């Protein structure tokens, strides 16, 4: 699987801010995001509107204030698990607040008061950290799927050993070659193969007995 190419230019990104609207017009967070080419939107405060939001992992990042009372819909955010990167705004550095941000999916943090110089680092780590986690989760799911396919692989090896009079290594090689020709993963190929066979064709004898017969 190829290495993840990291995002290093955040121009065109949309940051959705889940925090109280600042009093000052010269808000360093908004100012710093604009400097990086990131557009800013203030998130809706109503829970219903949150569910209606159209979010896209390639375009959006959520910046969420984790301090008590700062983001009323934080619990809902945790429940919905938005499919986009989340960066936490931290004022109170306590385990309970940090935990909530973690549960909301934060992969980077910004200390309050926000210093615009820290923004690029937070976006870089938060967004690329999120993407790396997505990739890792996809890889784990794929491995899990293949692990589940191991039973079909064992059955197919036994079938080929019996059908062609081969030892287990040679039977495996045969299946691997056939899977490559079919452009399928070996687990998928074996699963397909076993699905096409009538039930009575399943191996009648244990593999080690078969191996001894060949030995």
């Amino acid at each position, binding site marked *: 699987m190829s290495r993840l190419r990291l995002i290093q230019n955040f121009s065109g990104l949309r940051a959705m801010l889940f925090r109280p609207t600042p009093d000052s017009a010269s808000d360093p967070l908004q100012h710093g995001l604009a*400097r990086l080419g990131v557009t800013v939107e203030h998130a809706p405060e109503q829970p219903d509107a949150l569910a209606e939001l159209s979010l896209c992992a390639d375009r959006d990042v959520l910046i969420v204030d984790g301090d008590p009372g700062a983001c009323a819909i934080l619990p809902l955010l945790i429940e919905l698990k938005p499919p986009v990167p989340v960066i936490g705004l931290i004022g109170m550095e306590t385990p309970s607040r940090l935990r909530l941000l973690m549960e909301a999916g934060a992969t980077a943090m910004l200390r309050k008061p926000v210093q*615009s110089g820290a923004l690029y680092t937070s976006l870089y780590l938060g967004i690329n950290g999120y993407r790396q986690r997505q990739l890792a989760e996809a890889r784990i799911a794929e491995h899990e799927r293949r692990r589940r396919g191991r039973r079909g692989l064992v059955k197919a090896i036994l079938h080929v050993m019996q059908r062609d009079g081969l030892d287990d290594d040679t039977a495996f090689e045969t299946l691997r070659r056939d899977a490559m020709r079919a452009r399928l993963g070996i687990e998928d190929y074996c699963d397909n193969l076993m699905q096409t066979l009538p039930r009575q064709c399943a191996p009648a004898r244990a593999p080690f007995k078969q191996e001894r017969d060949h030995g």
Partner: protein
Amino acid sequence: MRNIAIGLLFSTSGPYGVVGQAMHNGALVAAEEVNRSNPALRLQVVHADPGGDLQRYEPLCRDLLDRGIRHVVGCYTSSSRKELIPLIEHRDALLWYPSHYEGFESAPNVIYTGAAPNQHIIPLIEHVLRQRRRRIFCIGSNYIWAWENNRILREVLVAQGGTVAGERYLPVGDIGLGQVVDAILDAAPDCVFSTLIGTSAYRFFSMFRAACTKRGIDQATAMPVLSCSLSEPELLQIEPGARDGHISSSVYFSSIVSAENRRFVDAYTRHAHGDASADAEASYVAVRLLGLALAEAGGDDIAAVSRSAAGQVLRAPQGLVRLDPQTMHAWLTPRIGRSTAEGRFDILAEAAAPVQPDPYLVRSMPKLEPAQAHLRLVS
């Protein structure tokens, strides 16, 4: 008359003292002009010299601030600038940073009058690619200026089908360059991109030229050295036979033909008895802008001065210069020059108008880092 003290914090001695001296002189020329042209304002310059020692920048800057100074013009290397920023922010002062640098910064208490990467390295790469030179060997002093410029060069070059033929880093001030010169000659690139600074750079130009001559190679034609920092006073630090044929990307050369530049060069030469350079002009621009902003703001309050500075337009030696209010970096005019044996630069190309600074390269580079090949040769 309002007297306002400003600090100049340049390493006028040490490994990159030649550049520091040029920046210091440029600032002094500007301070004289500000004082002459504005009878209501008198800049009092207080100078401190860290001697190129990173550890001395912070205490010297603290001394300047303890004297009540709110505006410090200074630093050449990024490491020294980064050393000062926490102090400058903590004391609510303003650092006027007059050097080209590698970008990826926009500190609220810093005003940047030197070139950002889209104003130096990007035009240089475009120039060499137009020359069809696609195999480039990178050498540099081992710090952020070299690392980041080489990263940008590699990404743009590889995307255009070019290759990095080799990459070497040396400690700042190191002059043990024999192995590096041999490595370059073995790789035989189309050109060499040097981010060496100070004495390492001067020694390299001389040694590389000598090694090429010994092998019958016309270095300036076969393997020209490219740089984003080489300036006129530095050419004079290179042995006379090795001064010509080097390509420099800069927003200023002393050979620019304009009335403003003639006045600047005359004033600079009278003051410093040497040739003006990009570093001198950048600190000249910083102090001129500071003078205009102080006069308009009516004092040295940094918020008022920053606001005022962002609205100034200066007829600088390089052309019109103004600050981008969003990043507080300057609009500057990129140029490509080729050094002559007399220690000056012939201008080969220049932008038609000042270019907006893009310190984070949001308009100049692709969204994703380049893909890296993981194929390897197998026997």
